[in-house]
């Protein structure tokens, strides 16, 4: 049995920031990640980040991961890699961890922060299981972490930030992107990202979806079709695409199995990405002692995930009784930053979703 003050499940930007903040308050922290490396989504990001300088804007994702990992080292946080949290024993508040392939260990923590991130959504269309059809995350991992090109001619499905950024990274790797399509009538990602892919000559087709994919054993092509405002396919508007790869980037769902298991009250809030845990101002769920932060709490951004992680880490440590004297100031500071990040028009979706969630909480 491993005993610790604060356990952090998931070592992406949210989990790393939570661990650093809790350790700063004086808590003994154990961080667990199923991957062989800390960093979460950041490891795949070769582009410069948005946001403010406090959250490392203009720095590339994998460089941000390295900065956070260095900070973690300075604070002697215990790190368990290749370790998956697989279950929670409600009665005694113990987490079951699977280390590597077959070793199971138990962990008991005074407080736990769940920062497990998100899972990609898939799309329904005939033959969507043909080899050559990937999720955007898989394409990024192949390309940016292993240096393998997923194909020669790609159709990107989804014009949100992920679809736009992965398209750009494919172009940088020398892969042809035939088009980016999106069923919505407008580009969902930042327009600056769209413009930078567009000026590489990649058409962006809004109000288009995939009608079908075809190929014998592997993907050999696809038909796309225009949709109306009700997302109904318009006959006669089909376009055949000569492609060998399709990349699906139609959104993420919070990865919340552990929170369901723990019995946290969950709510379905589309603006936040699906089922999300009800939480209070301190990022504590309805199960005492279990906190949440980052994409697991709502699908947003690494910048906000880092600030949320900080808040969860500060609050969890403080609830145990730790305080290095800066708790109140740090918390106030983080809350202000989070509000500023979410205050603009692109933050409206998250603001509305959080309002709905707050109504559910009472």
């Amino acid at each position: 049995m491993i005993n610790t003050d604060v356990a952090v499940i998931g070592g992406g930007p949210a989990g790393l920031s939570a661990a650093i903040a809790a350790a700063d308050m004086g808590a003994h922290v154990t961080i667990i990640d199923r991957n062989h490396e800390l960093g979460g989504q950041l490891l795949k990001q070769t582009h410069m980040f948005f946001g403010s300088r406090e959250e490392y804007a203009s720095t590339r994702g994998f460089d941000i991961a390295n900065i956070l990992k260095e900070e973690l080292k300075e604070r002697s946080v215990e790190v368990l890699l290749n370790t998956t949290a697989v279950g929670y024993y409600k009665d005694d508040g113990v987490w079951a961890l699977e280390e590597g392939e077959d070793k199971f260990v138990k962990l008991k923590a005074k407080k736990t922060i769940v920062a497990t991130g998100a899972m990609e959504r898939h799309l329904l269309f005939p033959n969507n299981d043909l080899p050559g059809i990937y999720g955007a995350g898989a394409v990024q991992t192949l390309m940016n972490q292993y240096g393998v090109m997923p194909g020669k001619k790609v159709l990107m499905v989804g014009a949100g930030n992920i679809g736009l950024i992965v398209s750009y990274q494919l172009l940088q790797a020398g892969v042809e992107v035939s088009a980016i399509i999106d069923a919505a009538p407008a580009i969902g990602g930042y327009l600056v990202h769209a413009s930078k892919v567009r000026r590489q000559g990649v058409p962006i087709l809004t109000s288009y979806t995939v009608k079908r994919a075809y190929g014998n054993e592997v993907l050999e092509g696809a038909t796309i079709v225009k949709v109306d405002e009700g997302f109904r396919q318009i006959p006669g508007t089909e376009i055949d695409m000569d492609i060998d790869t399709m990349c699906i980037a139609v959104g993420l769902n919070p990865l919340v199995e552990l929170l369901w298991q723990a019995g946290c009250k969950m709510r379905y809030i589309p603006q936040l990405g699906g089922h999300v845990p009800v939480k209070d101002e301190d990022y504590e769920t309805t199960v005492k002692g279990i906190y949440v932060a980052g994409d697991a709490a709502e699908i947003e951004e690494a910048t906000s995930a880092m600030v949320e992680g900080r808040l969860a880490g500060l609050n969890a440590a403080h609830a145990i009784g730790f305080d290095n004297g800066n708790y109140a100031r740090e918390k106030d500071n983080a809350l202000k930053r989070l509000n500023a990040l979410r205050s603009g028009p692109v933050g409206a979706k998250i603001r509305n979703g959080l309002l709905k969630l707050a109504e559910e909480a009472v």
Partner: protein
Amino acid sequence: MVSQRLLREGVADETDLKEIIPPDYALDKGPVAVAECFQEIPCNPCSTYCRRGAIVLENINDRPIIDYDRCNGCTLCVSKCPGLAIFVINKNFSEDEATVTLPYEFLPLPKKGDVVITLDRYGSPVGKGKVVRVQNTRYNDKTPLITVTVPKDMIMNVRNIKVEA
């Protein structure tokens, strides 16, 4: 409000551009930045990296509006913009040529003196230009800046280059 074309295709149209074209007095002075960042997004490196205070954002979601009394086209903001949305244009590079400085994150990088194809916001060829400067220092952090010559009436059209193999 951004244009429908920008929202649907990712290409700014005249109504978008009208708001950001530098005034004549600024263009006559020499190099100046243009920020083709038309949407309010939570982002501010352009403002924090400018040493002349030419871009002030009160709220991180504000759009960058360049103060042409302060901007001297130094290019410090260009490689720090994660949207790659800032360009420096110089209408008075020579008697009959202007230049555009743009971020370029592709290989192979052109060399000073090379002739490259110039592209517009659709990525369509619009002419050829000579590379007069390549900035690729640690400060640029893998976002090299290319300065290319363009006809004087093309400073608001050329936004990318293609290097011929």
